[in-house]
């Protein structure tokens, strides 16, 4: 039961994750006076690499417990990147 609740909370968190992270990244938008394009590109790259790394480690550690072959999830999951364009 606790596992089920945790999983549901995780799903909710992941559904809203792009918007939550997008709000944080928005502070660095180059459209705002004083912000540089380089910093924005760097921050976006670091965030994306961090998400990719976390995903990679989770799949490496817990790959066997996924219901579905994991090849499909990550590319689809990583399309989140486009939401911060």
């Amino acid at each position, binding site marked *: 039961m606790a596992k089920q609740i945790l999983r549901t909370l995780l799903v909710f968190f992941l559904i809203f994750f792009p918007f939550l992270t*997008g709000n944080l990244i928005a502070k660095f938008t180059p*459209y705002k006076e004083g912000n540089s394009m380089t910093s924005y590109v760097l921050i976006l790259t670091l965030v994306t690499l961090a998400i990719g790394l976390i995903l990679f480690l989770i799949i490496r550690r817990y790959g066997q*417990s996924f219901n579905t072959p994991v*090849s499909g999830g990550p590319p*689809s*999951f990583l399309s989140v*990147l486009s*939401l*911060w*364009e």
Partner: protein
Amino acid sequence: MAAPPDLSIVMLQHPEREHFRYIVLFIAALLFGFYAAIQFRNNTFQLTNPLKWIMAVLFVLAFAEMIWEFSHHYLYPEGLKKWTDEGKNADDFVKSYDNIHVIIPGATGRLIQFSIVMWLAIRLYQLRKVKIWSPVLTCLIGLMGIISATVILVTEMHLPKGFEFLFLFFIPGIPFILLYWTGVALLTREKLPHN
């Protein structure tokens, strides 16, 4: 970029902003193409001919439209510069650049993209790879996308007053958020006893 593109002459001071926006979308399109290629190679959707080939062709069309659309908009600053160098009014450029010959394939592409993303979520649910929330959420937003693309196609981008919100469902990132949610659904589905 946390802001819509500035399509005015000011864009020419920072063309790199729009270039970066579309580079990110290119990467997302490549991830989509990569995802589709893996699935069709492994026959994850468990389709038989001719449906398998029909879906593969639709995925290729959706991918091709993305690449074409992102290339077209990537080159917007260069087009605007050429336009103003010819002494034309910068405010008239957007109508010339995104004319009916761009709107028709753009809207058609969006119709295909939303349709296949919805089909994908439903198919994965049928195969018990995602939970019901995934196709429900995808179909709700996907239907809005289809309505938006149809209205834009019919009105040639002159949305009637009060319907401007439909533009929100026409932005290129929307099919990607649906794919992201499908990814979340795939990765958070608990292992079933028979798998």
